[in-house]
């Protein structure tokens, strides 16, 4: 399994070179790899079906209990087969479809990259690993939707898809973490249970169960385009047709369904009234109906299919929620065939006849018979026409039977299924029949002709497989669907699964309802003008308060909010930044004191202070006030010098001759530099009004007061014993050959031995400042040259003095 992922990842990177050197054969070359991998998966059907599945695992972060664990069971197998085999068909198709595109190499790189992510998603057993692949599919989907990035709707659609699925994915990550820890609680494992195959029973009894369900479903429902998050899927149709067929019909949008199915045995409550089941049935049934209804108002080929895919995804979610895993698995497989086929047909019609709108075209049967045959088979399958021996019919019978067996919800769900079924019949006629046999209101834009064989292969095979599915189910349908269904159910089925069409050839209520839906669908087709007119008020409503509009409002609000916040916080004014910082720090102090109620004790043993100290203190205090008031630049420099020297004397008095010496030297240098440049500097000007100055003074004084209290408080605390005793010990060796720093000045040995990297950093800062000064002076050297030389000299001196 890991090998297959590695092969695909390498293939993705190599795709541009393959495209360059393989020429027209690129589709065949590229498709061979997923086809081979798919064949390998197919050979594993018996092994995967026996419950345990195939497990591969490599330690990843063993400290955190995370491992790269992959597991192939029935459910993974169903999806892995769809990802690789439909993927192979789509690559073959895309090799011809994208012919001549100048960025074809990039396209295949993205497409195979997606294939890798999707395969990883369905094989991953570890929750974090699953999430990583999940987001990778979102990102590759973004790249593929926006592939034609010169078109505005491509970019908008790509961003919309990324925002909706990305936000859902983040919620899901939180949900998965809660899930892992809740599972750890139940299983008695500290640090959580991260492998899905090891999740314990009875999660629904955990206190965090509602959170797990809400957050995990937020990810699944957005990814699988459930109402009201469905709107991104039609927008994603800006992608090239192979992408729509592959990502937005067969695989990626089913990731949410996959995860729901995967977690169903663990999160289900077992009753239809449970939170998990209730949400699934509610969202699924609504999406099934709304998606199908919205599709009936479309005329663009791919948008019709997109909305109908939304509806199908709703069906899958609903069937899992209703507790019919067999019906869900049967439908997933059938849907991948007929919908994937129709999307590819839509691409052919666009590519070979230049038409995107099904309302206008018809009678393409003569020009493209093979395509028409595939489309009709897929259309009949999708419509689930009664007694037609196709996959769609079987899946639909199972679905209606599930609806008729829904306890108190029977009437409601059956009605919704039949209504959605009628709409689906209409969509099937519009997409599978109308373009080829229907009435054309005009000639196609291009001279229509049959597609080349690489483009025909996948749709025709998918359409024919639909017949094989229902006529010879034992060949592949029954084993795959049974294995997947049992994995969703979490145990073996009581009775063998029947997927052969003839089993459903009996006079029953289900068959009657299916027939009714078909008749209504045909009726809508013939009265479609009237239908569009009758439903337009709802469409207007959707345009004003619909989910897509809400998304637009939210995005607009986000942009405007960001601008407003930027104008306030990042307005480019230094004064505002300083004020913000000060207010924030003061606020944090106040909050900390309020929260802890802790005012630190302050030592009050203030001994008598000598005359020298008083002189120093008073001179600093006076200078600090005077420095802010003086109008003369030179006098201010002198006052600053006083402060600097006084501080140096304080250091000298209290046992810091080194710091004092440095301070003396630096202070002298600063005064010298200041005096040198002072007459090149502007005069002191008062720019702010009185009110601003008073406010600033108040803020500064408050902060100063807080700092004074902080100093007193901090000085009186001793959280740790000072480490100076260690420096004293380590300075000189006890014996002549002992290990030590070999220095008598403790400050010096700290600087050059114990904190030497710190000193190195300091020298780097000095160096950078020196370079900065030099550049600023040299940038335009028509100004005076002497100060430059002197200032450089100053920098050098200080570095030497320090070292």
């Amino acid at each position, binding site marked *: 399994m890991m090998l297959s992922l590695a092969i695909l990842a390498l293939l993705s990177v190599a795709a541009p070179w393959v495209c360059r050197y393989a020429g027209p054969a690129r589709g065949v070359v590229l498709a061979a790899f997923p086809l081979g991998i798919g064949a390998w998966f197919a050979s594993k059907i018996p092994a995967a079906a026996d419950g345990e599945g195939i497990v591969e695992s490599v330690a990843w972060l063993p400290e955190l209990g995370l491992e790269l664990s992959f597991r192939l069971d029935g459910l993974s197998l169903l999806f892995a087969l769809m990802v690789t085999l439909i993927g192979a068909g789509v690559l073959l198709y895309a090799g011809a479809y994208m012919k001549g595109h100048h960025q074809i190499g990039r396209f295949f790189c993205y497409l195979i990259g997606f294939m890798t992510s999707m395969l990883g998603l369905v094989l991953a057993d570890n929750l974090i690993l699953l999430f990583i692949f999940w987001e990778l599919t979102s990102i590759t989907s973004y790249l593929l939707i926006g592939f034609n990035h010169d078109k505005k709707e491509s970019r908008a659609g790509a961003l919309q898809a990324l925002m909706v699925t990305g936000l859902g994915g983040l919620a899901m990550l939180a949900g998965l973490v809660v899930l892992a820890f809740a599972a750890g609680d139940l299983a008695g494992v500290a640090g959580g249970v991260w492998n899905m195959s090891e999740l314990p029973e009875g999660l629904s009894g955990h206190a965090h169960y509602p959170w797990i369900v809400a957050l995990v479903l937020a990810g699944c429902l957005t990814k699988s385009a459930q109402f009201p998050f469905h709107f991104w899927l039609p927008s994603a149709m800006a992608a090239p047709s192979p992408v729509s067929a592959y990502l937005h019909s067969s695989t990626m949008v089913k990731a949410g369904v996959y995860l729901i199915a995967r977690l169903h045995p663990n999160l289900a409550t077992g009753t239809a009234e449970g939170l998990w089941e209730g949400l699934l049935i509610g969202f699924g049934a609504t999406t099934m109906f709304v998606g199908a209804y919205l599709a009936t108002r479309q005329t663009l080929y791919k948008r019709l299919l997109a909305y109908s895919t939304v509806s199908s995804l709703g069906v899958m979610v609903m069937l899992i929620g209703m507790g019919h895993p067999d019906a869900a698995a049967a439908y997933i497989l059938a849907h991948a065939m007929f919908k994937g086929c129709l999307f590819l047909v839509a691409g052919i019609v666009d590519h070979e006849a230049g038409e995107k709108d099904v309302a206008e075209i018809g009678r393409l049967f003569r020009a493209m018979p093979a395509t028409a045959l595939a489309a009709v088979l897929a259309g009949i399958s999708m419509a689930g026409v009664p007694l037609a021996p196709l996959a769609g019919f079987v899946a639909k019978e199972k679905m209606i039977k599930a609806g008729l067996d829904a306890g108190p919800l029977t009437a409601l769900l059956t009605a919704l299924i039949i209504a959605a079924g009628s709409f689906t019949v209409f969509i099937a006629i519009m997409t599978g029949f109308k373009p080829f046999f229907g009435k054309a209101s005009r000639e196609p834009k291009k001279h229509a002709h049959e597609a080349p064989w690489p483009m025909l292969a996948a749709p025709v095979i998918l359409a024919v497989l639909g017949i094989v599915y229902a006529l010879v189910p034992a060949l592949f349908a029954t084993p795959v669907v049974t294995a997947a269904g049992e994995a969703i159910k979490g145990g073996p089925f009581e009775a063998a699964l029947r997927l052969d069409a003839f089993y459903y050839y009996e006079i029953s209520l289900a068959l009657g309802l299916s027939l009714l839906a078909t008749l209504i669908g045909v009726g809508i087709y013939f009265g479609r003008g009237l239908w569009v007119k009758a439903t337009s008020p709802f469409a207007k409503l959707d345009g004003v308060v619909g989910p897509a509009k809400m998304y637009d409002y939210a995005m607009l609000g986000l942009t405007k909010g960001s601008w407003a916040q930027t104008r306030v916080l990042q307005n480019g004014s230094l004064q505002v930044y300083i004020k913000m910082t000060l207010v924030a720090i003061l606020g944090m102090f106040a909050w900390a004191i309020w929260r802890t109620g802790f005012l630190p004790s302050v*030592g009050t043993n203030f001994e008598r202070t000598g005359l020298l100290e008083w002189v120093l203190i008073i001179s600093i205090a006076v200078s*600090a006030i005077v420095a802010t008031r003086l109008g003369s630049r030179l006098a201010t420099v002198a006052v*600053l010098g006083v402060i600097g020297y006084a501080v140096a004397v304080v250091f000298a008095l209290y046992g810091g001759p080194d710091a004092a010496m*440095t301070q003396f030297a630096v202070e002298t240098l600063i005064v010298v530099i200041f005096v040198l440049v002072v007459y090149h500097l502007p005069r002191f000007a008062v720019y702010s009004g009185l009110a601003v100055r008073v406010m*600033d003074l108040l803020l500064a004084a408050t902060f100063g007061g807080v700092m004074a209290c902080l100093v007193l408080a901090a000085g009186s605390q001793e959280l740790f014993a000072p480490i100076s005793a260690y420096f004293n010990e380590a300075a000189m060796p006890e014996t002549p050959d002992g290990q030590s720093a070999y220095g008598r000045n403790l400050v010096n040995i700290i600087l050059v031995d114990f904190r030497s990297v710190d000193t190195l950093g300091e020298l780097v800062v000095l160096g950078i400042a020196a370079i900065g000064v030099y550049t600023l002076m040299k940038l335009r050297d028509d100004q005076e040259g002497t100060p430059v030389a002197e200032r450089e000299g100053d920098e050098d001196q200080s570095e030497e003095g320090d070292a």
Partner: protein
Amino acid sequence: MSLLLAVIIGMLFASALYMMMRRSFVKLTIGLILIGHSANLLIFTCAATRRDGSMERLPPGLIEEGQTRIEGEFADPLPFALILTAIVIAFAITAFTLVLVKRAYQEVGTDDLDNMRTTDR
């Protein structure tokens, strides 16, 4: 002494921040110099104050010739090492800012920060 130093530090911070909030670029530079002094004094005072709030003049951390260690109390060398580093870096910043002010004034013709904002956008 620690009480007096605390008051001084508060005053230095207040005047430094007041100067930094001025629109004049030169005054901002003076504020930077002042805040450097405040921070150095803060490190020193916090380290030198004892739990009861007293502060004593102690001999520096220097080992006598012929000895291998200091006997008796001595001033904690670590805060002075930190301050020494801080002084040098503050000096580098000051020198750079001064030249920047001079240069900006030459180029823009004003030292009103509010009039320089266009280059920040």
